[in-house]
């Protein structure tokens, strides 16, 4: 990529404009998320904004695996869930304090790291292709465990718990002269705002961390491994060690995202953290955004989240409009949106394997 930059310096470079567009979009999304509580004031929108923040971290950490290292893992929700369940169980049993988040979240992150190291050492050593299968099996066992060990996890119903005082809606961050909650631009400065900004800044920090990792020498080695494992090994990089390290890093960051999600939702259950449909969401987001671009994660998450909320509305209209025809309305039912997304996904992998960000930035497809 450095080469094309040098060569095409004098003329207008399409890759450069593409890159500018991507940076622009990402910056715009970042700004929108930063001011989300002021821009979009209904409950549903703040929910979407927080979900986008958490999923950007989750998807970006998955991109570190699939895009930068060429590892396909289906266990990412497992690590996400470990962080979330750790936090949730501690908050439930220790009471709603910061110590609970620290202890529970810490335990979740630790468990994720140990499990990732174990899986990595065991199956990355064997054969890369086994890895996808082993992680799928591990993730499904974890999902069953979470719903079976109902003494700890409350099974399918999940856990509902209190969060620290600061994040409760009744909390007054700022008060006006009468002692009521101060409103800035019509937004009440209560605990919800504190919770949102906790999620936002923590996510931003984690994303920044990921950007640092892929730009570091480690990131370069990872791309070398992805491009040609044998050559990387031949120059003296221990491929298995690097792969395992990256898998552990990604697991830790996913678990951190899980903590944020647990604190924001005040609920943790199999459907919000561990379920296979979330794994599919992550996969779709990373491919749509662009594998191996990091910034693509941001675009992919935003697009998918929008689609999840608004495509369904659109399909509802289409379904009722075609209600006269036999099979068509069933295909257009809002619940069937994954069908169309799956189709889009396949076409994308065939024709634009680099995703939106990758295509715009003209990153070479590997």
């Amino acid at each position, binding site marked *: 990529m450095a080469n094309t930059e040098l060569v095409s310096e004098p003329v207008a470079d399409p890759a450069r404009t593409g890159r500018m567009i991507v940076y622009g979009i990402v910056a715009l999304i970042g700004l929108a998320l930063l001011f989300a509580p002021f821009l979009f004031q209904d409950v549903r929108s703040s929910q979407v904004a927080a979900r986008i923040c958490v999923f950007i971290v989750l998807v970006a950490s998955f991109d570190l695996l*699939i895009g930068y290292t*060429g590892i*396909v893992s289906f266990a990412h929700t497992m690590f996400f869930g470990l962080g979330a369940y750790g936090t949730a169980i501690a908050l439930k049993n220790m009471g709603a304090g910061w110590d609970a988040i620290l202890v529970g979240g810490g335990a979740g992150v630790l468990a994720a790291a140990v499990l990732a190291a174990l899986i990595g050492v*065991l*199956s990355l*050593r*064997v*054969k*890369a*292709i*086994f890895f*996808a*299968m*082993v992680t*799928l*099996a*591990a993730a*499904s*066992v974890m999902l*069953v*465990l979470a719903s*079976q060990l109902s003494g700890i996890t409350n099974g399918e119903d999940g856990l509902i718990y209190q969060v620290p005082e600061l994040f409760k809606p009744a909390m007054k961050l700022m008060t006006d002269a009468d002692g009521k909650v101060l409103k800035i631009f019509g937004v009440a400065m209560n605990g919800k705002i504190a919770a949102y900004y906790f999620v936002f800044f923590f996510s931003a920090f984690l994303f920044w961390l990921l950007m640092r990792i892929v730009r570091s020498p480690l990131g370069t080695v990872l791309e070398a491994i992805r491009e040609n494992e044998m050559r990387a090994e031949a120059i003296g990089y221990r491929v298995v060690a690097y792969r395992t390290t990256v898998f552990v890093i990604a697991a830790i960051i996913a678990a951190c995202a899980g903590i944020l999600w647990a604190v924001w939702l005040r609920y943790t259950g199999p459907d919000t953290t561990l379920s*296979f449909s979330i794994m*599919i969401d992550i*996969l779709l987001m990373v*491919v749509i955004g662009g594998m191996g671009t990091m910034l693509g994660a941001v675009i992919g998450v935003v697009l998918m989240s929008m689609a999840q909320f608004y495509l369904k509305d659109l399909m509802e209209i289409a379904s009722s409009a075609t209600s006269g025809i036999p*099979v068509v309305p*069933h*295909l257009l039912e809002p*619940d*069937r949106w*994954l*069908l169309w*997304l*799956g*189709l889009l*996904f*396949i076409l994308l*992998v*065939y024709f634009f*394997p680099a995703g939106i960000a990758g295509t715009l930035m003209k990153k070479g497809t590997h």
Partner: protein
Amino acid sequence: MPSGPNASGSLIDRFGGVYLLPLAMMIVALPLVGSFSSWATLTVAGLAMGMMIFMMASGLSLVFGLMDVLNFGHSAFITFGAFIAASVLAALAAWVQADSLVLNFLALSAAIGAAALFGLVAGWFFERVIVKPVYRDHLRQILVTMGALIIAEQLILVIWGGAPLSVPRPALLSGSIILGDVAVEVYRIFAFFLGLIVFVALYLMLNRTRVGLLIRAGVENREMVEALGFRIDRIFIAVFMAGSTLAAMGGAMWAGYQGLISPTLGGELLVLVFIVVIIGGLGSIEGSLLGALMVGLMGNYVAFIFPKLALASNMLLMLIILLWRPWGLKPAVGG
């Protein structure tokens, strides 16, 4: 747990080596289970389950061995097979409930046949449309077949809805035979023998025919066979179609075995199928049979002895075997 007959070397190898593992499991399980009659029931159930899983796993294993194609959409064939068989049996309800062996048998053959036919056609379509453009690119293979799996699962929801479907079982195969104080369900015997027939047919086909020779040679070294002038890609389509047919038949059998099926069935079985393929070693049907029998037996014994451990037991089995033999028990190449 598989107690390791690996330790005492050549004598055990002479009597079958790793093939003794399921036998060892049965022997170890007997004192743990306690009563002989429950042990026998569990063993028969485990063997029947293993044979059905074998039917689903063998195709996946061969497809991977021959063309290095990993098909995550394999479970779609299983689910479709199960639902098609259930629908056919429901449509032929009169034959299913009839007191005539011939009509029973016809209904059952029609159900399994319909599933197999679907597997054949869908396998061809799947290979040509979904898999062919991404030969030799594992990452995109996984992504594309995953996308196809999403679509297939959604289509099942469109056609059959999300509610669990009950499967009528032919009168011929319901009920059980009493041997001493052991009650054995007829369906389990049927499943076991059908699986055995499939295995023997596959084994003979691979080891006694010219096509089988080419397939085995292709698994060993595809480039070399192609260099000798054989069209491996044509053989591959046939293998892929055979694999999807077997998966659909396995799904049909599974539907009858469970009696109640839901659209998530394929996804749940896919995990077992993967474990079987990993345990057995890629590319060999002997390995798949071995792995499937072990998984089936393990699942049934552990569910009886330590119910709490049941869900993690097969995962543990895979862990132990991967530590002991990283390539699986009986891989086609380098085993």
